[in-house]
């Protein structure tokens, strides 16, 4: 009888919980620590303070200072510690406080973390999930807003993912932490405070996908596909809403996984819409948009009605807060990109 009740309960939709992305990540971290004794959370100010964005709020009080702890201000040491702990069988979830502070850790990430599994012929896997508050949009000073996705995506042995919503953040973090490989988890700072409904059921990941791998179409459309990740997804959804007023139906593809990229989802979307615009905050040259454009051109060459357009940051150092609005792709720049693709004619 109780089995039957349990079966019925499992088929009922779980109510949505309204959470901000910081709360969703906090909740996911708590569940990971609860379920996995070998999981550890550490970084600058993540313990006593609860993180500069409150993402690790309350975790040290709940799980103890031996599982959630503060580190010195030394990112290379944070990553070195994570690598050693992973070799000893732990599942570290370190935090680099800001994307701009990841540079001192890049040596550890590239020369050790990314290749330890390869170097050891599979005997020393690195189940490390590195959380990096990423991208711009919060008027932060220099070194507190960067787009490092193409840097990390270029390194063999790393996986890179960026959630665009509380729902995605909650499920993707739990999924990333369950992986045997190192994952760079890029949290869009600009979206930390936006609340949205989160379905906490493990078998529901929402946004039109039955999987936590790959990309998701977050808005269907037929005239062109906007491809984005992180904070640019919500901006592209705004653009799609405005374009609809002009009679243009834009599809929005949330790439989610930036390494590996979901080539099948890109091909499926753009072969329907036949036009593609990729939008990112990182600089233009050798940005991840170039990789996306190459993949789309290869898979959709025969049906493409225009070259893939890139709407990106500029080839300048990521500016501090005052100049952010000039740098990060805004609604008009994305609409211009859409217009260029729509009016392109062959010959």
């Amino acid at each position, binding site marked *: 009888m109780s089995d039957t009740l349990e079966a019925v309960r499992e088929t009922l939709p779980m109510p949505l919980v309204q959470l901000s992305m910081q709360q969703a990540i906090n909740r996911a971290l708590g569940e990971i620590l609860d379920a996995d004794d070998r999981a550890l959370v550490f970084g600058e100010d993540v313990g006593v303070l609860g993180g500069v964005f409150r993402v690790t709020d309350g975790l040290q009080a709940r799980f103890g200072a031996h599982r959630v702890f503060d580190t010195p201000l030394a990112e290379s040491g944070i990553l070195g510690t994570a690598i050693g702990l992973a070799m000893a069988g732990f599942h570290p979830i370190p935090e680099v406080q800001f994307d701009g502070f990841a540079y001192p850790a890049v040596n550890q990430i590239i020369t050790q973390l990314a290749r330890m599994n390869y170097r050891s012929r599979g005997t020393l896997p690195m189940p490390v999930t590195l959380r990096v508050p990423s991208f711009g949009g919060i008027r932060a000073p220099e070194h507190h807003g960067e787009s490092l996705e193409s840097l990390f995506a270029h390194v063999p042995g790393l996986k890179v993912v960026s959630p665009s919503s509380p729902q995605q953040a909650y499920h993707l973090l739990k999924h990333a932490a369950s992986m045997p490989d190192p994952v760079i988890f890029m949290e869009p700072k600009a979206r930390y405070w936006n609340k949205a409904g989160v379905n906490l059921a493990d078998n529901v990941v929402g946004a039109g996908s039955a999987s936590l791998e790959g990309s998701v179409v977050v808005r269907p459309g037929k005239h062109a596909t906007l491809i984005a990740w992180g904070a640019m997804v919500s901006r592209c959804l705004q*653009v799609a809403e405005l374009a609809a007023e002009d009679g243009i139906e834009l599809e929005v593809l949330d790439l989610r996984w930036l390494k590996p990229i979901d080539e099948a989802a890109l091909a499926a979307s753009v072969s329907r819409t036949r036009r593609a615009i990729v939008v990112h905050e990182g600089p233009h040259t050798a940005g991840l948009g170039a990789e996306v454009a190459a993949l789309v051109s290869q898979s959709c060459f025969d049906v493409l009605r225009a070259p893939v357009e890139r709407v990106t940051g500029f080839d300048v150092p990521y500016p501090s807060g005052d100049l952010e609005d000039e740098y990060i792709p805004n*609604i*008009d720049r994305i609409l211009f990109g859409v217009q260029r693709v729509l009016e392109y004619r062959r010959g």
Partner: protein
Amino acid sequence: MAEISFPLPDLGEGLLEATVLEWLVAVGDQVERNQPFVEVETTKSSVELPSPIAGIVLTLHGEPGDVVLVDTPLITFRVADDSAGIVGTVPQEAAPKRRVRLSAVLDED
């Protein structure tokens, strides 16, 4: 609302404690980031400490004349859940504005 406590930092190199000279804020006050909130005296100097965040003062841990140990709570704030982190601001959600309109002749075939 969340409560955030700040411990007394080591104000020199290897100092163990400081004496509260004067609170510059009271319980219930709204304090801005970088606003001095207390003057303390160590064996080396007396110094005003700036608040690392904006918030409402919930608790002052000690009276003037009391000795506070390094790494023990000095002040506790109440902050809104959607308050900014220690760096940066919370993006303001405005209605999307645009100047560009799309004008496409779609020759679908």
